């Protein structure tokens, strides 16, 4: 197992080199100049040239990449052009907001998605099956910004049950411990802040959960249908096991491989930030940060974010693979658990 993980982490080095070169080049190939954007329309060419020199944009791409890469090796992702704050710091703060939102969205989508998929499969062609699969289709096809705005309109504006935006109500006392508001509020025993942040999380999390939920439900249904027709399910029933045991112990564990793949993939995508959802609900996450940085041509910030996503994706995939080994003993090459 340790060898498996270390080999995968070794691959990560090459992925990072590739990603860093690609992003570096692509950013410089798109039109727009950070110096220009920084000093504004009316700046003189001399001012722009001065800024370019200061940012190191006047040297060749090869040299620029060399400087960037050597700084990276020292653990320095550069400083944001816009805010002059180290990129790693900016990413970290926003990443925690994204993590909170992503975990909530994945919990909602996995729980509801798997449950709906399982019920649909064991009651194939029932009203529930048709209904949930139609909902899944609607969930996949619905534009996320529209759903977000609708939910906001209904729950915040019309009925006033849930807050509209942000991570918690401004003015509440918040002691930063880890940066995850919910966790910190529990750690410091601030129940009011905890419920406040949960309330703030519900709408964006649900909005973000719809598409993964629909995909997970459909995947669970098809995977379960396949497994339920297997011989070993008949064996399990012939033993006199209850329906629940047959479904959850014997079938679901076998059906889980494709489901966990979809969950992992979606979780990885969510951790990269959700631009639309974060924008609608003013959630201070990574998605908005990347887009804002991109429009300002904040090269170091964008480069940092993309590299960070690559690492996250690799880690999520690795976790999924480890789950595979846990779920399916046939994949354990050495034969040991």
């Amino acid at each position, binding site marked *: 197992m340790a060898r498996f993980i270390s080999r995968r982490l070794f691959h990560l080095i090459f992925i990072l080199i590739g990603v860093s070169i690609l992003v570096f080049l692509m950013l410089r190939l798109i039109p727009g100049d950070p110096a220009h954007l920084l000093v504004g329309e009316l700046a003189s060419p001399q001012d722009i040239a001065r800024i370019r020199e200061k940012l190191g944009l006047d040297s060749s791409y090869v040299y620029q990449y060399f400087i960037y890469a050597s700084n990276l090796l020292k653990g320095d992702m550069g400083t944001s052009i816009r805010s002059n704050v180290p990129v790693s710091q900016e990413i970290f703060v926003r990443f925690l907001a994204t993590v909170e939102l992503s975990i909530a969205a994945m919990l909602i989508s996995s729980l509801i998605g798997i449950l709906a998929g399982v019920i649909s499969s064991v009651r194939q062609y029932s009203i529930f099956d048709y209904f949930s699969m139609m909902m899944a289709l609607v969930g996949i096809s619905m534009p996320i910004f529209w759903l977000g705005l609708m939910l906001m309109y209904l729950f915040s504006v019309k009925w006033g049950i849930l807050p509209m935006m942000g991570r918690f109500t401004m003015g509440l006392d918040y002691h930063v411990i880890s940066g995850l508001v919910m966790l910190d509020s529990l750690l410091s025993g601030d129940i009011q802040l905890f419920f406040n942040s949960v309330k703030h999380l519900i709408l964006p999390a649900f909005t973000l959960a719809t598409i993964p939920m629909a995909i997970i439900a459909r995947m669970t249904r098809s995977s379960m249908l396949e497994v339920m027709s*297997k*011989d*070993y399910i*008949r*064996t*399990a*029933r*012939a*033993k*006199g*096991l*209850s329906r629940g*045991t047959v479904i959850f*112990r*014997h079938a679901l*564990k*076998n059906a889980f491989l494709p489901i966990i793949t979809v969950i992992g993939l979606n979780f990885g995508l969510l951790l990269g930030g959700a631009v639309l959802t974060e924008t609608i609900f003013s959630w201070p996450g990574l998605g908005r940060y990347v887009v804002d940085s991109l429009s300002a041509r904040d090269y170091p910030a964008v480069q940092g974010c993309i590299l960070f996503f690559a690492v996250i994706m690799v880690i999520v995939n690795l976790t999924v693979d480890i789950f595979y080994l846990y*779920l*399916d*003993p*046939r994949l354990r090459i050495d*034969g040991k658990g």
Partner: protein
Amino acid sequence: MAAPLLEIQGLKTFFFTRKGVVKAVDGVDLSLNEGETLGLVGESGCGKTVTALSIMRLISEPIGRITEGSINFEGKDLVAATESEMRKIRGNRISMIFQEPMTSLNPVLKVGDQISEAIQLHQDVSKKEAWDRSIEMLRLVGIPSPESRVNEYPHQMSGGMRQRVMIGMALSCHPKLMIADEPTTALDVTIQAQILDLINRLKERVGSAILLITHNLGVVAEVAQYVGVMYAGYIVEYADVITLFKEPRHPYTVGLFQSIPKKKGSAKRERLQAIPGLVPDLLELPKGCKFQDRCSRVFQRCREEAPLLLKLNGSHQVRCWLYE
């Protein structure tokens, strides 16, 4: 004489498909006493497996349904039993071994867990005791070093071993009846003999009756005391094994015996006899006897009236107008 352990009367199991009603089991009568072995023989698609699954009430509803008849087991009609009553019988009083050992065990659970799960469910024992009993069952079915094998997954075992595990699992709760659905078909010949021998020995030890489903007359001769020959959904001939092998009466049974290749060197080598034609389409069964189109001795009455199960001498019964 005491009442038989299992008595099936007029069992009909139909599948209601889009193309029409498939009469997979169409009036099966059988009885089996405690500790006896009954062989159920017939070609593919004649309803042997569906009969077995009907006894277990594992027909996939709502497409398949038992429409008529009764299955009396230990004085209880299984056709009328509720699902929760059936769950207490399955794996406990009646257990079943399937044809495909390679796919009949759950690939993601340890064999020990798969055996002990049934023991824990039906017997009042702790998890630890059930686990120890699983090891004991593996030892009983002849799996070497059961203490370590119990922790293995099915893919770490060969087909023969997996079938042994299935047998161990089936016998773990000392069932009164064990249904073995083609238990040796998927195995190679030397393993087949071992598995048959194992079933025979364990049957004596546990005292279960066995309903052995097979298309192999050799297997029947080896282990069964009584034989039922099935054709297109019903029993065409029933007798004790010696009578059936000595004096087969139904033209279909006679045909089956003729289609067994003779040993090399025994008299002249003849051309292998086969029964002409195919099993009738279960969607469009002919009026009268279902075997009429393939029968060499067919006459007018066979085409008009479905034959009844006629009693010959002793337990010998045959469904053919020739013997009225």
